[in-house]
């Protein structure tokens, strides 16, 4: 792995919405992403996991350049690409591409697949029509669709096929980093498997790096090199996938893992780890956002948001409790 991450995000914050108008109810902006830092190394799969509304999509769109960051820095191969106006930002980040959460809705229903796919090439300066057609045909084949698909329209495809089309569309632009926003949500198990398989294949073939956004822990566990758990706009835990799944440290991560349904069947039902509802993102709390749902909350948690601190090499957690636990366990080791 190269020493310079292909994509680095430093203390990124994003504010969304908000309205103040004459005689109108003022709507406060949503702090959708708060001081997020991520490193994505070439060739790896980094998964971003979190509940609905925690800011995963917003983070992805901001990295892509569709959403303007309110603070922080984004570096592509060491170059700063943040702080630009939206269209300039998008141009500077053309090696990053994004696959939408809802692949079907991301296609113009009035355009045939062929035209839609060619359009990307056209925008990126491929003027020769036959070259475009050839490349589209080749790409369709690469994602496992036959060339006749080019003549059809989005509504004529199934969910799994639409994901393939969405991938084909952005792969034509020869990206190096792909942000995959829940690429398997809403798919059947069998289809999901084929799509995941395709993703792995394509990664090999085109030397891609993935930022994989998902809430499906089973998939994430199997697929990713590293994971980052997000809660209400913040990364609360990040580290190598194996380690995080083996030793979930943040109480939220544990909650998530406990809640995920597993084929292994009925876990001992007892008082559940999970309490309360997913949080309201407009709420601004001074302390840890997970405070009200946390089974091990302490008074200090209410005062200031905990910062990400390493608990093991490459494994960072933002939790006062984890830190105490760790020092305690270190102390115990010393004592032992």
């Amino acid at each position, binding site marked *: 792995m190269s020493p310079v991450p292909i994509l680095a995000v430093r203390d990124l914050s994003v504010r969304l919405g908000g309205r103040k108008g004459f005689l109108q109810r003022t709507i406060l902006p949503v702090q959708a992403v708060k001081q997020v830092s991520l490193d994505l190394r070439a060739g790896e799969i980094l998964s971003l996991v979190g509940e609905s509304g925690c800011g995963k999509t917003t983070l992805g769109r901001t990295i892509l350049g569709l959403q303007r960051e309110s603070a922080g820095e984004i570096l592509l191969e060491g170059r700063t690409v943040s702080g630009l106006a939206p269209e300039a930002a998008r141009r500077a980040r053309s090696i990053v591409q994004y696959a939408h959460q809802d692949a079907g809705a991301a296609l113009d229903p009035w355009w045939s697949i062929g035209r839609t796919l060619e359009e990307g090439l056209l925008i990126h300066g491929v003027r020769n029509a036959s070259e475009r057609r050839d490349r589209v045909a080749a790409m369709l084949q690469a994602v496992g669709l036959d060339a006749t698909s080019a003549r059809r329209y989005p509504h004529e495809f199934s969910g799994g096929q639409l994901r393939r089309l969405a991938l084909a569309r952005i792969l034509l632009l020869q990206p190096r980093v792909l942000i995959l926003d829940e690429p398997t949500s809403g798919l059947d*198990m069998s289809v999901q498997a084929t799509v995941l*398989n395709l993703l792995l294949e394509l990664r090999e073939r085109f030397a891609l790096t993935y930022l994989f956004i998902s809430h*499906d822990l089973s998939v994430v566990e*199997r697929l990713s090199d590293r994971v980052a758990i997000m809660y209400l706009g913040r990364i609360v835990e990040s580290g190598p996938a194996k380690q995080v799944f083996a030793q979930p440290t943040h109480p939220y991560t544990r909650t998530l893992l406990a809640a995920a349904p597993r084929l292994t069947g009925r876990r001992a039902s007892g008082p559940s780890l*999970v309490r309360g509802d997913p949080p309201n993102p407009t709420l601004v709390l001074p302390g840890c956002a997970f405070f009200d749902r946390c089974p091990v909350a302490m008074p200090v948690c209410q005062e200031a948001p905990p910062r990400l601190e390493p608990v093991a090499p490459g494994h960072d957690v933002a939790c006062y409790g984890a830190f105490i636990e760790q020092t305690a366990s270190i102390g115990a080791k010393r004592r032992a």
Partner: protein
Amino acid sequence: MMPVLSVRGLKVSIRTDEGMAEILDDVGLELERGRILGVVGESGCGKSTLIRAIMGILPRGATIDRGEVWFEGENLLAFSEAELNDQVRSSRIGFIPQDPLLALNPVFKVGTQMLEVMRWHAPDAKDPTGPRGGARRKAHVARLVGLLRRMQVPDPETALERYPHQFSGGQRQRLLIAAALACAPGLVIADEPTTALDVTTQHQILLLLRELVAEFGISLMFVTHDFGVVAELCDDLCVIYAGQTVEKGPVQAILEAPSHPYTRALLACHPDRATTFLGIPGSVPSPLARPPGCLFAPRCTDARTLCLAGRPPQGLAPSGAEVRCVQFA
């Protein structure tokens, strides 16, 4: 023991622009009293249609060609619309819909909608001796508030006065569960009630459902596409493929030793079990043109010529599950 609900050989087709679509071909299942039956199948296999057929709310153009739906000893298919309304819906069969976001009428207060149901279907609704009018309404409100409290809906007293959009997704699903239980039905049918929810919320709802089944002594038919959920919640399982029941039996048995090639393939795709992500080759046959023979044969790795001869009969697998496959015929 007689099952609460038993569906036998149900066949439903819908007239479409392209022709007659056989949505359900041959579905059979039994739900014993006090148990939870999981109905699993891929998208489009006819799960919702099955529910609609049971509750008598098939879309326009749909016909039941064959089959029986027995509920507490009565054939529901013989009921008229009015009879179903009077005697079955809500009062004896509760329903929990898939998407809590869309299932509540956005422009009416939650209480209005729930009380509308109770007004016609609550156990005391047709009781001439009980309280009437305002008093009865008050009793209904009291029961609802109690239920909502049981469902851990915050502020159950004021909840009835609020509109659906003022609740979060999980809360709305709890409201819908409360509505399903409001008239104390013996059977509750849930159509993928947790797919639209977060894992943490889903987990809470599943726990809640399990508690309710025990507490209220109801039987639950739980439709889903997620084996994980089934494993966690259900006692029995019924796997549907392209409008046919392909395997049914106790959950444990099937998960441990799936017998039908489809069940096996599907389970093999699950990330918890998959060695590699491969999926099942091919695709589900179109309901407009069902192939002869076993419907899974075109995708089956063990397919033999016999499979193409005709629809395979039900057989008993060693695991104790009933399986529709020539292997066990």
